[in-house]
C-alpha cells in the first residue's frame, strides 16, 4: 500500500484544480470522491431517459486565468463558448433587455426602454469592471491573518498595488462604497428603468438567501463580475456541458500522475497529537498521507470528518456560526418542443434568461426565507442547455434548466417532501408560463433538486451552493472563520480548498489554486 504525499477529499472543481497543481509539482497525490464520478458542482446528469442537464451550473462566470495558464487548460480539452447574447432579462408584457457581449448592442437594447439609461450603460459597466479589478487581485491572495498584520503580510499583498496605482485611492473609495451597498442603493445612482434595475439587482442576489434590499449584495454582484473583461452579466458555456471543465482538470491531474478514485467515501480524517495523518473510507480502509486537503465545506470537513472532539471549543463555536442557509433550488424540465418566447428568436435563445420584472418582485420572493416558506412568485433564471449540446435531448426535443430563488432549506411548519416539491414546481411553472405561454403543455418530465437534496446527494451543508453564504461577514479573512482563512486549518497538515474558503463560490478554481500554493509551502 503506497503512502501518499497528499490526499484530496472531493473531486469537485477546486479539489481537482488543487490535485492537478500538486501533481504537476511532483506530489504523490490521491483524490477521493464519494460519488461515482468527478465534477461535484460542475456535474451533469441524465435526469430522465434521454435527457441530460447540468445539475447546478449551466454557465461559468469566470475561470481563474492563473489556473488556465499553469495547467494549459485550453489544450487539455476545455472549450468555452461565449454567446453573442449573455443574458436576456424578461419583464412583463413580453418586454425584454438583452445584455450582449458587445456593449454597443446592449446600449441599443436598453435605449428601447430608456434613453437616459442607455447613455449611462457603458460608464456603469466599466465602473463595475474597475471595482471587480480590485477583487481579482485580492482573490489571488491568501487572506492575511487579521488583525496581526506584519510587514511580511503587507509585502505579500503587493499585488494590490496594481489596481491601486491604476485606479487611485478614488478606486478604493468607490469599492468601499459599493461593496456594502444594497442593490437599490447602487441602481438608484445610475438607472431609472425598472427592468434594467432589477436585471442588475438579480446579479447581486445570485445564490444568496438574502434579497436585493440586503446590504452587501454589492459585494455579491462584484463577485459575479470578476474577470468579466468589462462585460456585464459575463457568462460562458462549456462545450459539451459544464462537466467538461471538471473532466479537463481530471485529465490534467491524471497526466501528471495523480490518482483519482470515485465511489470512495471518506468517513473520517484521522488525527493524532501531531495533526492529521490520513483518512478512513466507508469500506474501513485507511489511507495514510502527509497532508490532507478537503474540498468539502467547513461543516463537513470539521464536524463530520475531523469530529468535534478533536476541535477546540472556540473553533467549534466559529464553525457553528458559519451561515449556510441554502435557498436555491434547481428544476430541470424535459420538453417535447423548443419553447416559444415572444420576441426572441431561436438563435438568441442560447443564453441565460431571467424573470425579474422589478426589484420589489425579487425582494418579495426573498421574504419567503425570513418566514420559512417557498416563494409564491420566485425569481427564476433559466437556460436551454440542449440548444448548446445536441446530446442533451432527443432530436427536436429540449431541456430547460431553471435556478429558483427562494426555496429555503430551513422551513417552518413543514419540511421538504414530494408535496412541497410539487408546490415548488407549480410556482415555477406558473412563473415560466408568463413568458412561455404554452409551457405546461410541452413538459414531459421534471426533476427537482431541493436544498435538502443538495445536502443529501452532493454533501452541501444546508444546500448552500457556495459552501457558506457570500456575505461580508464571511468574506476573505473571515472565510470560513477568522482562525482558518489561510487555507491552513488549526489541525496540522489539514488544508481546505473548497468554496468555503476565500474567495468563495463559483466554478473558478481560485480556491484550489491558492490552496495548492499553501499546501506546497508545507
Amino acid at each position, binding site marked *: 500500500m503506497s503512502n501518499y504525499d497528499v490526499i484530496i477529499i472531493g473531486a469537485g472543481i477546486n479539489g481537482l484544480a488543487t490535485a492537478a497543481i500538486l501533481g504537476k509539482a511532483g506530489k504523490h497525490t490521491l483524490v477521493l470522491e464519494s460519488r461515482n464520478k468527478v465534477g461535484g458542482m460542475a456535474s451533469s446528469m441524465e435526469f430522465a431517459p434521454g435527457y441530460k442537464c447540468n445539475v447546478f451550473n449551466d454557465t461559468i462566470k469566470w475561470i481563474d486565468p492563473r489556473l488556465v495558464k499553469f495547467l494549459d487548460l485550453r489544450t487539455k480539452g476545455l472549450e468555452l463558448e461565449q454567446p453573442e447574447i449573455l443574458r436576456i432579462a424578461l419583464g412583463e408584457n413580453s418586454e425584454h433587455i438583452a445584455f450582449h457581449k458587445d456593449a454597443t448592442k446592449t446600449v441599443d437594447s436598453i435605449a428601447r426602454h430608456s434613453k437616459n439609461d442607455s447613455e449611462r450603460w457603458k460608464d456603469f459597466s466599466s465602473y463595475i469592471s474597475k471595482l471587480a479589478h480590485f477583487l481579482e487581485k485580492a482573490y489571488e491572495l491568501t487572506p492575511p491573518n487579521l488583525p496581526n*498584520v506584519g510587514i511580511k503580510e503587507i509585502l505579500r499583498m503587493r499585488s494590490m498595488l496594481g489596481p491601486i496605482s491604476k485606479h487611485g485611492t478614488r478606486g478604493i473609495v468607490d469599492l468601499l462604497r459599493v461593496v*456594502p451597498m444594497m442593490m437599490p442603493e447602487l441602481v438608484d445612482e445610475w438607472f431609472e428603468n425598472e427592468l434594467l434595475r432589477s436585471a442588475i439587482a438579480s446579479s447581486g442576489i445570485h445564490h444568496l438567501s438574502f434579497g436585493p434590499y440586503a446590504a452587501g449584495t454589492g459585494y455579491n454582484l462584484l463577485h459575479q463580475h470578476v474577470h468579466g473583461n468589462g462585460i456585464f452579466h459575463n457568462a460562458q458555456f462549456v462545450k459539451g456541458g459544464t462537466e467538461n471543465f471538471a473532466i479537463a482538470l481530471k485529465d490534467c491531474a491524471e497526466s501528471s500522475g495523480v490518482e483519482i478514485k470515485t465511489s470512495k467515501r471518506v468517513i473520517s480524517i484521522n488525527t493524532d497529537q501531531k495533526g492529521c495523518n490520513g483518512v478512513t473510507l466507508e469500506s474501513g480502509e485507511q489511507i495514510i498521507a502527509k497532508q490532507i486537503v478537503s474540498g468539502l465545506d467547513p461543516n463537513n470537513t470539521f464536524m463530520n470528518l475531523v469530529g468535534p472532539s478533536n476541535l477546540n471549543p472556540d473553533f467549534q463555536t466559529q464553525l457553528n456560526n458559519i451561515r449556510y442557509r441554502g435557498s436555491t433550488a434547481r428544476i430541470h424540465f424535459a420538453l417535447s418542443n423548443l419553447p416559444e418566447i415572444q420576441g426572441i428568436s431561436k438563435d438568441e435563445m442560447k443564453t441565460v434568461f431571467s424573470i425579474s420584472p422589478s426589484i420589489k418582485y425579487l425582494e418579495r420572493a426573498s421574504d419567503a426565507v425570513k418566514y420559512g416558506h417557498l416563494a409564491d412568485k420566485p425569481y427564476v433564471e433559466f437556460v436551454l442547455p440542449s440548444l448548446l449540446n445536441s446530446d442533451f435531448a432527443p432530436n427536436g426535443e429540449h431541456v430547460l434548466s431553471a435556478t429558483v430563488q427562494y426555496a429555503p432549506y430551513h422551513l417552518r411548519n413543514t419540511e421538504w417532501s414530494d408535496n412541497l416539491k410539487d408546490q415548488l414546481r407549480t410556482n415555477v411553472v406558473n412563473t415560466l408560463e408568463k413568458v412561455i405561454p404554452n409551457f405546461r403543455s410541452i413538459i414531459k418530465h421534471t426533476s427537482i433538486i431541493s436544498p435538502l437534496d443538495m445536502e443529501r446527494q452532493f454533501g452541501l451543508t444546508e444546500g448552500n451552493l457556495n459552501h457558506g453564504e457570500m*456575505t461580508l461577514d464571511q468574506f476573505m479573512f473571515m472565510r470560513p472563520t477568522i482562525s482558518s482563512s489561510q487555507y491552513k486549518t488549526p489541525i496540522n497538515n489539514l488544508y481546505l480548498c473548497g468554496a468555503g474558503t476565500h474567495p468563495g463560490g463559483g466554478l473558478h478554481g481560485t480556491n484550489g489554486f491558492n490552496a495548492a500554493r499553501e499546501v506546497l509551502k508545507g
Partner: protein
Amino acid sequence: MSKIKKYDAIVIGGGHNGLTAAAYLGRAGKKVLVLERRHVLGGAAVTEEVFPGFKFSVCSYVVSLMKSNVMRELMLPKFGLELLPLESTMTPLDNDYLIRTADSDQTYREIARHSKKDAENYMRFGPAMGQIGMAVRPILETIAPNPIRPSLSDISATKKILDHVKSLTSKQFEYLTKLMTMSSADFLDEWFEYEPLKATMSASGIIGTFMGPRSPGSAYVMLHHYMGDIDGAYRSWGFQRGGTGAVSMAIARAAEHFGVDMMTEASVEKVIVKNGRAVGVALENGDEYNSNIVISGLDPKLTFLKMLDEVDLPSDFVTAIKNFRIRGSSGKVNLALDALPNFTCLPGDGHHLRGAISISPSYDHLEKAYDDAKYGDFSEAPFMDIILPSVLDPDMAPPGKHVMSCFVQYAPYDINGGWNDQKREDFGDAVINTIARYAPNIKDIILHRQILTPADLESTFGLTEGNIFHGELTLQQLFSLRPAVKWADYTTPIKNYFQCGSGTHPGGGITGSPGEMAAKKILGTW
C-alpha cells in the same frame, strides 16, 4: 433692514450639535451667533408643551450617547444637565413579559425564567459588547481622514487607527467585523435562543434605520446604540429631567456663558458665498449677517443643496450629496394620558413603567412591520420604543396625569399615495391599536395625541425625509465617507463653510460629538 455686524462664526441651526459647536468656539474666545429657524432651540432634542400642562420630548426622547468629555468641558451639569437612569426595559408579550433592569441579579433571574442558557450568555454579552464599544471608541473620536489626497495629519490619523486595530485581539476583531456587516438577528442568534429577548435586543439595530433585524447592516446600528456612555458607564440610557430639550438648554446656557449670541425665529435662506468663500448668511426676512466662517448643523442635503447654489460646488460633490441616503423610517406618537397604562402581563404600577417598554415580541413582528414599509405603507402592527417620562419626572404632566412617548417604526417617508391628514390619523390608530393589545385601557385614558410622520419631522424639524440620523448609518456612509469622501473632516468645498450635524462622523444620536469635533477641527485650522 439688514443689520451690519460681523461675527467670527455663525452657526446655522440651534440643534444640540450646532449649540455644542457654538459653545466650544465661544469657549475659545470666538464671537459666535447661532441662528435657529424655529421659535425654540434644540432642533430634534427639544421639549415642548404640546398640550396645556403636558410637556413632551417631541422628537428625540432618550439620552445615552452624550460624550462625557463634552459634558465636562462645557460644564453641562452646572447648566442643568441631569440624567435620570431608565430603570428597565420591558417587553410585553401576550401572556407573559420579559424585563431587564439595572439590577443584574434580577435581570439574570428574569431571563433565566425563559432560558437559563440565555441568562448565562447575557452576563457575558454585556461586557463583550462594552469591550467592542471601547475598541471602536478611538475610531469615533478621530477626525475622519481624507483618503483621496491625504495630508500628513490624515496619514498619521490613519496610522493611529491601524495601530489601534492591530492592538485588538483576534476575538475582538472578529466581533467587530461581524458587527460591521451582519444583521442584528444573525449576530444575536449566535448568542441567544429566547425569541422575545433576541427581538428586543435586535430592535436597537433598526432604530432610525430603514432595515429589519434580519437585514445585514443592522448589527452596526445596534453597536452604535451600545456605545451609550452616561458618566462613563457603557450601555446605559437615561432620561433628561425636563425632557431632552433640557439637554439642549444646558448646552445653550453653556454657550451663553461663553458669550455666544443665539436667535430664534431666524430662518437662514442662504449662505453668502463670495469668490468661493463663505462670508455670511442671508435670512428669509432679508437680514444679512457677516462672519469669518459659517457652520451648518443641518443635514447634508440642506447644508449643501439648499444653503448653497449647486454652481458653487464641484459637480462630483453635488452628485455625492444627491446620492447620500437619508430615507426616513420612523414616526413619533406623543400621548397625553389621564392615568397610567395598565399592562395585562404586569398590571399596575412598577419598575416596568419607569423604563423603556419595547413592543418587540418576535423577529417576525419586527420583520412584518418592516415589510409593510418596504412596500410603501406604514406598519399595521409597528415596533415601538415607549417611555413614560412623567413617571420619572412629574413636572412633565399635570398632577396625576401622564405623558407617553412612542417612537414608532416603520413609517416610510415615501408612503404610497403620499402622507395626508387621514393617513396620519390612520397611522396613529395603528399605534394605539398595537399598544392596546398589551395595555387595553390605553384607548380610555388618552386625552390628546400628537402624531408625527416622517413628513412632519421634515417640515417641523428640518430633518430631510424625516431621517433622525441626518443620513442612514450604513457602512458606505460612515467615517471618511460621511457625508462624502474628501469632506468628512467637517470642512466643505466652500472655504470657511463647515458642517457639524449628525450627517458627519460619527453620526446621529444626542452625542454632541459632531459638534465638538467640528469645533475642534475649526479651532485647529484657525
